[in-house]
């Protein structure tokens, strides 16, 4: 049988080339087989082992392609290709040394893995996929602000950034204090890095305390002050009628904030902002996080470090960074719960700030813990507010060593996962959603995570020319639902940000290891779904018996109201 027939092709996906080669599997050794390259993926299938070894890697996940060995290299299988992936794995293929056998495949791979470096479109623009649901309609800023009860008498919606004049990395719709005029906003923008002024992210429905986000003030070496900025923050503070101080959370370590003065940035000085308290959250920058994840990869791929696992894990500091991010978000949520408004920033306000505001909102607002709400949260705090996905992930870009790369969003998803572990019933979505989001963070199959900000997305017509990741997910919601979800409307979730509870997300970071049982869902989840099916079956049987049996044997008080026999496992709320 032609193995070609088994290559899964998406609508719009086209085969480019194929080649016989050897996959140097780090677990089971050299495996002969055939590799297929399409404009979307690399697909490998072994020909000589049973069960077959297959690889299915979206080219978007490729970070680096290198030649390994030369025409004269000695040793078996020393000549070939080495592929580094963004999703925690490396692939190695060996070819015959004769006749430059790898030249073609290397070039094709290089071109299709890094289309932007070759003036070619990303696959998301070629995809012809159709879904029942349109993911682009998930998030509408106006609708979301209305859900939060905005505008109100203290906060108004401004369209000042309609054409990205105020700030080119912000969305067009912004919520600002009612008392601040458009002119005020312009003046504040001049004093904030890249014009990213403090704007409202979330408002507490009862105490009206707000989370505002922004970038660092342009204090500089000379310690410049800006009366407009000072007054603007004071308006934010008093908007909910408290006399408490405004808390400014600077996500950075203190020293970093000081160092930023040298490049014109800085932080809010005590003298200038007398009604505010400044708290540094000690979260490190994108470079530290990148190196940390790199170290983590070293101890989990291909083999899990066995002899000193825990101390090796500690030395990556990955969990420590997770802890600091979560602990910061807890502080934000705590301030809000007690009625104090907060302003969150880091340097530019698009990495650590996004982590903190979105995690705090996840703790405070149960809406964001639903499948739909989580999509809104990501669209709002990450995508629309200009987390630089293109720079951080490097979609289609051959510059794998670019200093802008950093797993900030991965870290955020990891924090969410930690919260779902601590509160197994509080989230409507399952681990599978988080893994899927991360897979498509890299894949370039959807437009959702492409480009750095809304203005560039508009220019490239992402919403009309590509498909949204949420289209895929919302057309198959059942697959992403957490069966243990219990609706709770008003509860604030405070995870325990302690090493005692933080865990390495093994089902994500160690998922390529064949020594680990691969399972679609956790055994507990699976069992729960089995029990749901069993319950439905019994209900049906009971109903049949009750119908056929005219004389009722049972007192009906304990009998459940008959449930629809068409109920499926995936239905969560059964009338019982």
């Amino acid at each position, binding site marked *: 049988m032609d193995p070609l027939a088994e290559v899964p092709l998406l609508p719009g996906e086209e085969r480019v080339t194929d080649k016989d080669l050897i996959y140097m599997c780090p677990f089971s050794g050299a495996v002969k087989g055939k590799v297929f390259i399409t404009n979307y993926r690399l697909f490998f299938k072994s020909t000589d082992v049973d*069960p077959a070894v297959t690889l299915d890697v979206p080219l978007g996940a490729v970070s680096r392609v290198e030649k390994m060995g030369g025409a004269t290299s000695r040793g078996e299988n020393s000549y070939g290709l080495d592929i580094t992936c963004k999703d925690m794995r490396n692939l190695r293929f060996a070819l015959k040394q004769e006749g430059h056998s790898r030249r073609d495949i290397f070039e094709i791979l290089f071109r299709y893995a890094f289309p932007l470096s070759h003036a070619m479109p990303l696959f998301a623009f070629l995809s012809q996929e159709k879904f029942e649901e349109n993911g682009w309609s998930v998030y509408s800023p106006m609708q979301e602000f209305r859900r939060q009860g905005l505008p109100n008498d203290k906060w108004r919606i401004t369209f000042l950034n309609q054409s990205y004049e105020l700030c080119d990395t912000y969305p067009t719709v912004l919520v600002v204090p009612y008392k601040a005029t458009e002119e005020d906003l312009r003046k504040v923008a001049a004093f904030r890095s890249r014009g990213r002024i403090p704007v409202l992210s979330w408002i507490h429905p009862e105490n009206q305390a707000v989370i505002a986000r922004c970038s660092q003030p342009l204090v500089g070496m000379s310690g410049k002050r800006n009366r407009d900025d000072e007054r603007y923050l004071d308006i934010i503070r008093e908007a909910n009628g408290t006399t408490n101080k405004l808390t400014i959370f600077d996500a950075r370590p203190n020293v970093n904030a000081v160092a930023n003065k040298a490049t014109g940035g800085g932080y809010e000085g005590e003298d200038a902002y007398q009604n505010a308290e400044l708290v540094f959250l000690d979260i490190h920058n994108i470079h530290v996080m990148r190196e940390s994840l790199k170290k983590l990869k070293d101890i*989990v791929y291909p083999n*899990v470090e*066995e002899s*000193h*696992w*825990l*101390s090796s*894990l*500690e030395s990556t500091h990955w*969990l*420590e960074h997770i*802890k600091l991010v979560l602990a910061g978000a807890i502080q934000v949520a705590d301030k809000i719960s007690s009625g104090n408004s907060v302003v969150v920033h880091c340097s530019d306000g698009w990495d650590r700030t996004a982590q903190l505001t979105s995690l705090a909102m996840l703790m405070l607002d149960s809406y964001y813990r639903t499948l739909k709400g989580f999509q809104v949260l990501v669209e709002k705090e990450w995508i629309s507010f200009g987390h630089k996905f293109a720079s951080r992930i490097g979609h289609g870009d051959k510059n794998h060593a670019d200093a802008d790369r950093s797993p900030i969003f991965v870290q955020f998803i990891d924090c969410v996962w930690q919260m779902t572990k*601590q*509160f*197994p*019933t*509080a989230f409507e979505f399952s681990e599978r959603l988080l893994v899927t989001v991360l897979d498509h963070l890299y894949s370039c199959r959807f437009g959702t995570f492409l480009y750095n900000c809304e203005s560039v997305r508009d220019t490239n017509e992402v919403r009309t020319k590509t498909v949204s990741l949420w289209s895929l997910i919302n057309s198959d919601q059942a697959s992403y639902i957490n069966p*243990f979800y*219990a*609706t*709770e409307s008003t*509860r604030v979730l405070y*995870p*325990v940000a*302690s*090493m*005692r*509870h933080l865990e*390495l997300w*093994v089902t994500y970071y*160690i998922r390529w*290891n*064949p*020594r*680990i049982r691969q399972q679609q869902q956790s*055994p*507990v989840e699976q*069992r*729960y779904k*089995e*029990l749901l*099916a*069993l*319950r439905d*079956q*019994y*209900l049906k*049987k*009971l109903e049949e*018996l009750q119908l*056929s*049996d005219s004389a009722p*044997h*049972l007192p009906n008080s*304990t*009998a*459940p109201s008959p449930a629809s026999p068409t109920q499926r*496992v995936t239905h969560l709320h059964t009338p*019982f």
Partner: protein
Amino acid sequence: MFSVKPLKPTFKSYLPPLQTELTKTPQPTINKLEAKLLPGEIVVNEVNFVRKCIGAESSRDDLWGKLICTNFKISFVTHDALPQQKFQYANRLLGEHDVPLACVEQVVTVNDAKGKQKVLGSNQKLKFNPTELIVYCKDFRIVRFRFDEAGPESAKKVCLAIAHYSQPADLQLLFGFEYVGKRHCAPSGDQVNGADRAGGPQTPLFDRTCDWDREIKRTGASEWRVCSVNEGFSVSPSLPEYFVVPVSLADQDLKQYSGFFTAQRIPLWCWNHHNGSALVRMASIRDPAQQRKLDQRICNAVTRSHPKRGDVLKSDLDKSLPSIQDVQAAFVRLRHICVIEPFEESEEKWLSSMESSRWLEYVRAFLKHSAEVVYMLEGKQASVILQEEEDRDLSCVVSSLVQIMLDPHFRSLQGFQSLVQKEWVMAGHRFLDRCNHLKRNDKEEAPLFLLFLDCVWQLMNQYPAAFEFTETYLTVLSDSMWVPVFSTFLFNCARQHTEHSRDFARSKNIPLGRDKALRFPPVWDWSQQFTLKDQALFNSPLYVGKGGPCVQNGAVKSFKRTKKNYSSTLRGMPSLRNGLLGEHDYFPRRSSLVLRLRPDFSQLREAAESPSERFFGDWLSRPPDLQGLLLPQLLPSHLKLWRLYFLRWVPEAQISRGGPITAFHKLSLLADEIETLQRQLRQYKGGAPPSSAPASAPGTPQPEQRRMYFKADTPRDPPSPPDYLSSSFPFSPVGNLCRRSILGTPLSKFLSGAKIWLSTETLASETL
């Protein structure tokens, strides 16, 4: 405002000071506080107006009451309710604030005015009046009492009594003897606890031949027999009176061989695989001259009991596994980092501290070794002899783990209990010494049983639906070691049990009647400690039992265990090279020489994986059959700290309204709903019972005995988990640990140091 520490009154007040009583009024009935006593329990000393410290930062939530030392427990009686405590998992033998004396690890008295502290031992003097008492417990609790308003002399007396009575000089001074003696005299059925015996199946104790016969029959071990050569403990002091041996060995042979084994411990049969291979445990052979001959005889006998005359492999546990001292040292370090070290300060180095405690490394070592024995029994179809110097420690862990992995029966509640009874209690694990109940020899203390429970927890964590019982059950079982009334954990061996209870009865003139001795209740009689309702927390809603229904592809199926499917034989096993299993001795079948084949290491390195690794790999690549073989995931990244056990008393680590229990709660509601439906379906007597419903399965509960703790109808399917759930549930750190609240004393630094657990002597000599 009031100060955190109550002011010292100028005159001796016998009422609690008013300034700390803003939240509660002084109890007029405080003098009427009485300890609740069990049969045989007497009050030794007591002191009034004692403050039990609750809050970490202030004394606002502290409780006022009476501190009592009895011959069984430290009891704190109060009329005040514990704050934030909406849930109480009550032990029938103990009050809310009670600590059994057997659970006391260390007693520390403090006088903060004088800046003095002393670790109290038995029969010691105390030259200062204590202002506070800190009790470190074996179950990781730390309880603190303050005597600011108490009579100084009475306070001192109570402290001394606690120190003295928690270190009994003799086994028969352990409370269990008085208790069982008194209960023996009382007319039956009139038990103080009203212990309502559950009608369920009794756990076999393996002190009778019929229990062994049943086990032989259950496992199809037709070539094995029960022998009674040790009746009256005439051959070996530490073996049970009845045990199982190869049919081919006559009683005469056994008696003859016994002399050559350490402590006359003849090899014991543990379990049979349906493929015919057997698991056997044995002590070392003392006489080197007899070693080879005896080894071979035993080996031949085991081979002859294998229907296919399969190989016999020997596994030397002393060489392959950490020693009991290693395990104890790891435990002490782990306890230190879990409950002694200040929480925040230890965060940064938490993972490496965990690693350097080596506890998880040992858990992994035992699981790994057991999995390899499983491979030999299942994959190689060879019988395995576990050998250990005395066959009373490491063997207990390995033999039970092997059986849990291979035989689903031992993953049911009754099966598990029978396993502990068979491989630990009857096989002569020295519970008395390992628990150090008499606090006589610290070198003998080792938490081997806890290590075993942790290994079981790891399996349970990886395969939650494979076990009938829960982690709460495992925790409660472990805690029961410190309630010294159960036959299970009081003795070093069956003989000690029999002799001491007989002697005690004689010395107290207790008429024994037809019984040979006093009967200590086994811990398995759970109604001694918990109500039926609370016992429901032992039942896992996830369990896929053998009679229980399960769903595959939407169709309800009923598991019927056949001989074949509970342990699928491996197909296409690769041909094996000899000796690849490293440390294990290898006996070629029927050879005249006992050979130890050296593994060819160069060959081993080249092979991508060893046969056992391939065996594990094959197994992992298939979906697990929860009613079949279960192998642990052994990567260090997949072994976790057993948080419920180790962190349940740490307030900072408590996830309020979260933790795995919240999912458990939801599962329980569903499982209970299903039970209700099953019952309703069964009530249709007219129609035939639905074929797929296991309506007639013997294990299904009666309407009044529902399995689940959380029930679907009360209140009607609540939308969210109850408030009182937390990651510590059903335990609560509230009031159990006041580590951070050593206000006004110079102790805080001192308490965070390591030595308090480690060396009592150095400390005691330092002060006073």
